[in-house]
């Protein structure tokens, strides 16, 4: 009988083994095919032996809706970006990890899909990705900047904040991300640990859609804007350092806080307004998704709190409804939910990253669109000079306050934690911790984040966990310093022409990739072309969507159909 059970188990095993065997074979043949196509490609593209022949990628014209007209290697160490319209935020966007540079040869060799073997110029070299358990990096001794003070960097992950903190407390980790609000106090009270506040700009708001009565009435929206005690929410549900939102965009960003502050909390006046509008005591459902974000650390608890406030302060009968994240984003984006909880974390430090996405002409998430908001935004976006744009953002902010498409509630603070012995531990405003600036005083530094990366080819990833793993290996032209300002990386500088439509980036000399090859302008063009040009044979990636290329530059080039 035991024999029979063994037989059964063996059968399962055989099934698995057989399944694996066949797929392994098919993938190799696929890979072989891909290599042949890329070889064919290589003969047409040009990297001749004699002299420098620069690669280029260009859109046929600017009608495709994207921001980039062409990217050209105009010298061995010079890349010129020509844009279809002015882009004052160009350097801030370029510094984003998805725009990291890898050797052109490596991109070809991997068929445009170096998912688990990135080659970069960064301070750490990827050694091994042990799926399900950790990622191990070694210090890059040949780093162009100051090489790291320690040898081995280990990435691990745990979904629960409590588990991450415990790893730290038990000495198994040196640095952990995203403490839960409740854990912040225990870190502060522990002399062995250091609390590292994170100041990534973000906003949490209560959205309302005019498609769903009675939110089509301006008075109702204004009454709600006035009838929520935002201070009480921030005091009780947000970690220290969080702020009640005075404007949609947090004030740490230039031009964000021009214009009047948000309405003061006044429950009586708000109830009176509702009564005057004839909209007392209606029923409403507050939709939200149960996903941790720095702007909304406890979605369920905050949803309950807002429901209770609406009922106490305004006599509105509110219930809460959690929705699966993907569905929530779809449906709230269409403006179908009358009332919903959502927020925004900055991709790059520019006010347009907040305002244009939410209040542009094409936005549907609040039902109606408001010309007195978006007309100002469009005009401001065409100006390279922040001072000239200032009055336009002021007008836009005041129009947001007057129309109340949503109620901005909080700018959330978050915090990482590290061992007190970890020298130089800082949680940067943008991007992942910069471990090359830290010193654990031993050979190995262990970092614990929320989840395992999806892949390590970040041109085609969007989740923060993948981006932080990539950031250690692959570098973009520019980078963010710890305060969120820009710093040179592979480019020593990027300079615009007068109207910010042409940007010339000068590359750093003598930078080598982890495979020993030298960085030149063609590597930059190849890396960018792979992402931005949908017709590029190497436009493969993981999902093939290259979401951030399409989103931050308005569209990919040469998209079929």
């Amino acid at each position, binding site marked *: 009988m035991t024999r029979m059970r063994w037989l059964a188990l063996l059968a399962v095993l055989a099934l698995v083994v057989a399944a694996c065997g066949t797929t392994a074979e098919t993938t190799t043949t696929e890979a072989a095919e891909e290599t042949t196509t890329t070889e064919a490609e290589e003969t047409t593209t040009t990297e001749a032996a004699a002299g420098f022949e620069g690669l280029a990628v260009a859109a046929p014209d600017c009608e495709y809706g994207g921001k980039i007209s062409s990217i050209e290697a105009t010298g061995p160490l010079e890349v010129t970006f020509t844009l279809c319209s002015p882009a004052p935020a160009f350097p801030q966007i370029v510094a984003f990890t998805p725009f990291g540079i890898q050797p052109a040869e490596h991109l070809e060799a991997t068929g445009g899909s170096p998912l688990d073997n990135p080659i970069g110029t960064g301070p750490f070299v990827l050694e091994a990705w042990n799926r399900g358990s950790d990622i191990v990096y070694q210090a890059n001794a040949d780093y162009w900047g100051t090489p790291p003070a320690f040898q081995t960097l280990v990435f691990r992950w745990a979904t629960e904040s409590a588990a991450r903190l415990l790893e730290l407390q038990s000495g198994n980790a040196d640095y952990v991300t995203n403490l839960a609000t409740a854990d912040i106090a225990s870190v502060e009270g522990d002399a062995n640990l250091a609390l590292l506040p994170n100041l990534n700009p973000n906003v949490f708001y209560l959205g309302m859609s005019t498609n769903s009565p009675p939110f089509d009435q301006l008075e109702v929206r204004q009454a709600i804007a006035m009838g929520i005690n935002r201070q009480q929410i921030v005091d009780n549900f947000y970690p220290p350092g969080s702020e009640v939102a005075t404007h949609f965009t947090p004030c740490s960003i230039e031009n964000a806080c021009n214009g009047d502050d948000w309405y003061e909390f006044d429950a009586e006046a708000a109830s009176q307004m509702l009564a005057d509008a004839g909209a007392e005591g209606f029923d409403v459902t507050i939709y939200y998704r149960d996903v941790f974000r720095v702007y909304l650390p406890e979605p369920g608890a905050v*949803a309950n709190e807002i429901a209770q406030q609406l009922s106490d302060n305004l006599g509105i009968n509110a219930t809460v409804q959690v929705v699966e994240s993907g569905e929530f984003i779809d449906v709230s984006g269409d403006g179908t939910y009358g009332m919903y909880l959502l927020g925004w974390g900055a991709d790059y430090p520019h006010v347009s990253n907040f305002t244009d996405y939410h209040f542009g002409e094409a936005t549907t998430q609040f039902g109606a669109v408001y010309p007195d908001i978006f007309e100002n935004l469009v005009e401001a976006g065409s100006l390279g000079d922040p001072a000239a744009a200032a009055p336009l953002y002021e007008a836009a902010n005041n129009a947001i306050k007057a129309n109340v498409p949503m109620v901005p509630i909080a700018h959330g603070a978050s915090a990482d934690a590290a061992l007190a012995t970890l020298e130089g531990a800082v949680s940067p405003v943008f991007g992942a911790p910069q471990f090359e600036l830290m010193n654990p005083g031993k050979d190995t530094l262990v970092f614990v984040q929320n989840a395992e990366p999806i892949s390590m080819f970040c041109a085609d990833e969007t989740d923060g966990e993948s981006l932080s793993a990539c950031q250690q290996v692959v570098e973009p032209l520019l980078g963010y310093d710890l305060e969120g300002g820009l710093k040179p990386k592979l480019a020593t500088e990027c300079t615009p022409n007068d109207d910010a439509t042409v940007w010339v980036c000068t590359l750093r000399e003598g930078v080598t990739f982890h495979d020993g090859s030298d960085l030149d302008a063609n590597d930059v063009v190849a890396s960018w072309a792979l992402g931005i040009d949908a017709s590029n044979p190497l436009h493969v990636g993981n999902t093939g969507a290259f979401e951030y290329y399409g989103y931050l530059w308005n569209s990919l080039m040469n998209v079929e159909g």
Partner: protein
Amino acid sequence: MINSARQRVLDLEKLAEESQFLEKPTSVWRNALRRLLRRKIAIAGLIIIGFWLLVAIFAPLIATHDPNRGLLGQPGITRRDPPCIYALGCSTEKPQHILGLDGNARDEFSRIVYGTRISLTIGLTTVTVAVLVGAALGAMAGYWGGWVDNVIMRIADVVLGFPALLLAIAIVAVLGPGLRNALLAIAIVTIPQYARVMRASVLQIKELDFVAASRALGASSWRILFGRVVPNALTPLVVLGTLGIASAILEAAGLGFLGVGAQPPSPEWGTMLSEERNQLFSAPHLVFFPGLAIMLVVLGFNLLGDGLRDALDPRLND
């Protein structure tokens, strides 16, 4: 939780096969009740269940606060405050909350008290639905045999081919999260157990003399099935059902824990626990008490089910 169910099925199928007490159902039950009351374990189960029933019925009288009302803004209130009991030396300057406060500053004790209603409802409704549907299908399969039997039992095999919790998760993912859908998923997943046990009982009983006699006297199939066969096959179903209530409550809590069961702000214990699992180290009371409540309810039904099985199983009566 998962395979215990299948083991029980096999167990009870065997019990059904070996039942020797089928002629007079009423006396069987009277004897069983007498034997049941002699068993300390069963008594303990009855007491526990009785306790929770009382809690559920008198929840509004027992609860000290509104279970869904956050107390933020009132003096001395901090979210996730640990238990404060005056009798145990908690300062009387603070408001008394014997099991502490939760993430919305709601009284944890009152939420657990009201949660009793949800958990008992979960257990009773899922099992009722599953027993009714399962017994009907099983009776049909067992009585008519042939292709009816084949179709029903192959479908049952497919359902039993999945680990129950995984299938329930998938069903809830399809239907959308929420208590009603979770109940439905658990009922669907457990139907085959009852069908199999019922079928086994029916197969045994229909060979017995009194059924053969009825058939010879020209009674219709339906009449024989529901008048004679079904009442006699109920014994193992009652045992399985009692134990099924226990596992249904556990499974619902598991679904709640994974975020696809009852949705907040409902005071369902698994959901309450799941909402606060991140606070395990800073506010352990919010994980400990709901879990303890789940355990105690489930324990009650498990003890009673065990006692019932022993009482109804002639082999174990010395």
